[in-house]
């Protein structure tokens, strides 16, 4: 099977000369079926190729250049660049009072929230895959956050919280004892149980609203994987005397685990690009203060961190998935 597949791939690969002759007229290779198909394919993908070259590659290169230079706006001319020896990166890592702090904060929050989002969306998807009354309604509601937590919407109210409401609402909560996890936390710490693990757990509980609001797409993706599992698998397991718990770990989890990676990557990206993210906000602030060089340098560092997280997540998860593949 694998050798066959490799052979097929080899046949489909394009050599350098072959690809040029396929695209240019007046040669023998031009009028073959394969070349004709290739030209149609390129035509279909052309919008993307054009857009990528015009609006992605050029700005990307310029952005790297800008992050390495001092950028000064010249009215009526555009901007002027002066090489300043990685000064922008040094600024981002050493001088900027907020960037580092926000980056560490948000990365920590991301690690906790992403894990919780994955677990919660998987559990919810398993529940929503069962048959019960009002399932359609429940599905519709769980998917609503895709709308309600997009774009400006979460950011506007967070802005308000940051400004002044945070202090007030914390005080009110402390006085009235509304904050359940806080009082539980107090109780545990008095009795000497409180530790780092509990702190993480309490952070998750306090962030449950954010987590549910961020898991709309993930639930749907898991749900699609779950509904694709054939019921006869469960029947066979049941006949063999398998309990529901065993069936979950031996059938459900392995069947859905490939989607874990997709979801993990989506969750990380989604978190890093949200408008209510402090780092994002800060980079935008720098931009509006016309610190163009600094803001691009900071966004490159930010992108590097996001990429590192995606790399780690895919390494860990692919190991888990591979275990099930064999």
């Amino acid at each position, binding site marked *: 099977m694998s050798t066959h597949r490799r052979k097929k791939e080899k046949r489909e690969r394009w050599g350098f000369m072959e690809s040029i002759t396929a*695209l240019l007229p007046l040669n023998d290779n031009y009028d073959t079926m394969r070349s004709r198909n290739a030209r149609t394919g390129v035509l279909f*993908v052309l919008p993307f190729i054009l857009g990528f070259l015009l609006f*992605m590659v050029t700005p990307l290169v310029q952005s790297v250049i800008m992050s390495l230079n001092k950028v000064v706006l010249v009215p009526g001319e555009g901007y002027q660049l002066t090489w300043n020896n990685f000064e922008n990166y040094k600024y981002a890592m050493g001088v900027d009072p907020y960037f580092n702090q926000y980056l560490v904060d948000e990365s920590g929050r991301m690690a906790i929230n992403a894990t919780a989002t994955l677990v919660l969306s998987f559990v919810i998807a398993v529940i929503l895959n069962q048959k019960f009354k009002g399932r359609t309604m429940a599905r519709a509601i769980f998917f609503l956050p895709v709308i309600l937590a997009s774009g400006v919407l979460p950011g506007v109210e967070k802005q308000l919280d940051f400004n002044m409401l945070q202090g007030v609402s914390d005080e009110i909560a402390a006085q009235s004892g509304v904050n359940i996890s806080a009082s539980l936390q107090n109780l545990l710490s008095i009795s000497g149980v409180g530790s780092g693990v509990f702190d993480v757990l309490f952070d998750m509980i306090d962030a449950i609203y954010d987590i549910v609001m961020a898991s709309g797409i993930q639930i749907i993706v898991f749900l699609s994987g779950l509904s694709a599992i054939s019921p006869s698998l469960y029947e066979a397991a049941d006949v063999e005397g398998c309990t529901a718990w065993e069936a979950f770990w031996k059938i459900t989890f392995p069947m859905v685990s490939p989607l874990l990676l997709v979801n993990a990557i989506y969750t990380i990206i989604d978190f890093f690009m949200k408008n209510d993210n402090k780092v994002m906000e800060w980079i935008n602030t720098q931009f509006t203060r016309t610190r163009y060089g600094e803001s691009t340098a900071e966004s490159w560092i930010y992108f590097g961190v996001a990429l590192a997280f995606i790399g780690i997540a895919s390494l860990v998860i692919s190991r888990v998935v591979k275990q099930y593949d064999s």
Partner: protein
Amino acid sequence: MTAKTESLSREKARSANKKSGGYLFRSGVKRWTISIVRGLLIFGLCFMIIQPMLTRFGSSLMEERDLYDATIVLLPRNVTLDNYRIVFDLTTFPRSMINTAWTSLIVSVLQVIACTLVGYGFARYEFPLKRFWFACVVLMIIIPPQTIATPLYMNFRYFDIAGIIKTFRGEPLNLLSNITPYMLMSATCMGLKDGLYIYMLRQYFKGIPKSLEEAAYVDGCSTLRTFTTIMLPDALPTVLSCFLFSFVWQWTDLFYTRNFLKSMPIYSTELSSILTRMGRYFSADAEKAVIIPPARQQQLVSIGVLICCIPLIILYIFTQRTFVESIAMSGSKE
């Protein structure tokens, strides 16, 4: 009569339970417990999602003094619609909403057309550097738009092709004064989250059996006609759901809107700066801003959010099935 049959069936169930050694009873209890726990969990989480909207709606109808009254939590005592009028003024309401609607529509239609073509190309054709280009699509999904925002902005602000325009006009063209650059970006798959739509559509097209097209080709159908009459109708639910996603996300988008649609009031940008404008609105002197109590601020911001959401929620109610089901379908072919 019915009572009699009921007692009879109850008798029967009891004897069946006895025969099974209590198994039926135990499994029944288990089933009930599971469904009760499940119901509570689902209800709780659903309530958590919907509750903020309900609170917002409740507080939006309150007069200002109701906000400071500790005995009033959800329902207003003095109902008023004045708050909506204030928010309308703050966000230049009808105009900004109309602008949002038509820009979102144009942009998302362009995006979906481009992404459908590209997705089909990636799913069905072999061409040089295909893997490389697809890697670029993935790169596009994970690269934060902030990284390229500055140079893109500069490009369009001081638009020039090799100095030609400057020699004629004396200064470079400012393309940011209209919607053209953003339309160009959407038509070439470089808009908001376009990588994701390409990925979804490619996934769907890959799942359609190849023999369908081959049959069409054998019957003498051209490539374009095969695409429009055979593939497109089949993929319509996925295309539609991509359109809805794109429309909704464009509607609430702040980042691209703030950078590329500066020339006209768009609801999302108006909403994002509502706090700063509020202070000036309430003061008698247009130069000085007054400090507004936090509760009042929150009320007005909530109304702004509510106004932004209502059209989308109405849209969602009608298209909910397309949203949920077609994602489920495209996902299953990972």
